[in-house]
């Protein structure tokens, strides 16, 4: 376990993998000159369905999921996906909620006041200033997954930025039981970001690169991400190719996560939500360790929580109408 704080030597080794900087020139906390690119950064986006006229919708409901790493806003028009925004969480939860919501509304012609009911969820759910209600992310992920993958879903694994949840649910997306790890970065998206930054490889390419090996190398032995970083630096020094290192890291992550899923038990159908679901390297290895395939969908895996919140918002609004 050698400790190396000087990054010069691995920078040389990774040179071949350094991609051209993208246009998003954001402020960076990396201290070295000339390395403005943030390799951990995934694509932020907003989208709305141009074929739908939201003004015609009877109920406009929205969900905002303020996670520890990413924030999403989803707007539903009569229970159908209408607009989405997915971005990085800032240092201030209320601000992040507002920015995500405004970005989802952008270009739709809608204003915040036009939305009938808004539910906040996620780590910062109690600090969504414009929300009518807060619902836990466990409930929202189960509900969202039910919408995204259909009523056959029984086990939802949410691999988020800072925690890992395994949720068992019924055919209506109601939570039966769950287990959660929020203590340790190993097995979370944040841990993957640290490795992306260290190896200077865009996080979106890690999954594919990690699969470009003939057979999986032994997994990284350290659990702690901080120690794993040191182990990775040692591998670079020994001229281990970057795709092999990534295979070793993603294997370790999948092994760790699989152990937790097995505690709760996997019942089919099995789905993975959250940012890590976009990493093929982790998903395919996890499927192999668990001996079960996960369902796939066209909807962004990262919005499951916000989508579930928006579905709750719709139901809650209907209930509030009945009371009147």
């Amino acid at each position, binding site marked *: 376990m050698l400790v190396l704080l000087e990054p010069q030597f691995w920078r040389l080794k990774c040179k071949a993998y350094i991609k051209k900087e993208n246009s998003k020139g954001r402020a960076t906390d990396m201290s070295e000159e000339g390395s403005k690119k943030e390799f951990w950064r995934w694509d932020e986006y907003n989208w709305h369905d141009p074929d739908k006229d939201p003004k015609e919708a009877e109920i406009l409901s929205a969900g905002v999921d303020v996670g520890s790493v990413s924030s999403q806003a989803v707007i539903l028009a009569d229970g159908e996906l209408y607009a989405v925004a997915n971005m990085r969480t800032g240092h201030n939860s209320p601000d992040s909620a507002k920015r995500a919501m405004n970005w989802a509304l952008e270009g739709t012609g809608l204003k915040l006041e036009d939305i009938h009911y808004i539910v906040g969820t996620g780590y910062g759910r109690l600090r969504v200033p414009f929300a009518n209600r807060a619902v836990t992310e466990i409930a929202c992920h189960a509900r969202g997954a039910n919408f995204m993958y259909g009523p056959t879903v029984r086990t939802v694994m949410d691999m988020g930025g800072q925690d890992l949840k395994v949720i068992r649910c019924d055919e209506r997306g109601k939570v039966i039981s769950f287990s959660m790890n929020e203590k340790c970065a190993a097995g979370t998206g944040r841990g993957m970001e640290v490795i992306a930054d260290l190896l200077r490889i865009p996080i979106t390419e890690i999954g594919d690169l990690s699969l470009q090996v003939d057979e999986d190398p032994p997994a990284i032995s350290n659990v*702690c991400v*901080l*120690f794993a970083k040191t182990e990775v630096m040692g591998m670079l020094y020994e001229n281990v190719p970057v795709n092999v290192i990534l295979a070793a890291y993603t294997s370790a992550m999948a092994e760790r996560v699989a152990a937790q899923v097995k505690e709760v038990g996997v019942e089919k159908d099995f789905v993975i939500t959250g940012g890590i679901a976009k990493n093929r390297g982790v998903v395919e290895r996890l499927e192999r360790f668990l001996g079960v395939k996960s369902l796939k969908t066209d909807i962004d895996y990262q919005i499951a929580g916000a989508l579930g919140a928006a579905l709750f918002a719709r139901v809650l609004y209907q209930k509030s109408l009945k009371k009147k």
Partner: protein
Amino acid sequence: MIVGGIDVGAKNAKVVIMQDDEVLGKSIGAMEIDRKKSVRSVFERCLSELGINEKDLKYIVATGVGGSIVDFADKVATIVSCDARGITRLYPTVRTVIDVGANESRAIKCDAEGKVRDFAVNEKCAAGAGAFVEAMARALEVSLEDFANLSLRSTKSIPINAQCVIFAESEVVSLIHEDTDRDDICRAVHDAMAGRIAAMARRVRIEKDVAFIGGVAFNKGMVESLRRELESELKGSDFIIPEDPEFVGALGAAVLAFEM
């Protein structure tokens, strides 16, 4: 009889050379990428400073997380037994040793002869080790020395909720953005780590006297936070912190070599 003790840690290698019951000299050096070479160079530096030949050494005992890479050692001993041996040679009244290194931390209960009665180790998670403070000092952009001193100036205790170093880093960044006083953040980091070390130490049932060793014992802010945390166990007394807290393991190894 001249003997040597070598403690190969995660960050530094420590060498102690003894003649009979007397310490002749000691050296410390950073572990670089080539670990065998790093150990060798610290060892050779120590010998040349003393002006003695490697052939004059009767026995060499290696210990520490990298003890097994020392191919010129006669024996490899566990760091737990070396810590216990080393501390009781310096302070025979010590019954509990808390050793906090760069990557690992340990609490060891021992008797007057330096025999190990019980121990607890954390080697899986950086949260209870020196690497935690280093990472936080980097996030705050202050040197380790300043980090310890700033912490001593703080009068306010604020909790850090995250256990994981990676998450704690984000939490510290949020504290910086909330314009929290830097002194208080430094103390918060030490308090959080002290809590973790104390929890580990309590697993062996702390008995007086208590010694604090390892490189982290140099950090006065950490010592203060741990003292506060273990107030009830220390019952008005203080930690024993040896003059060279990072050499205790190597000293213990040398003592074991002498006994061979």
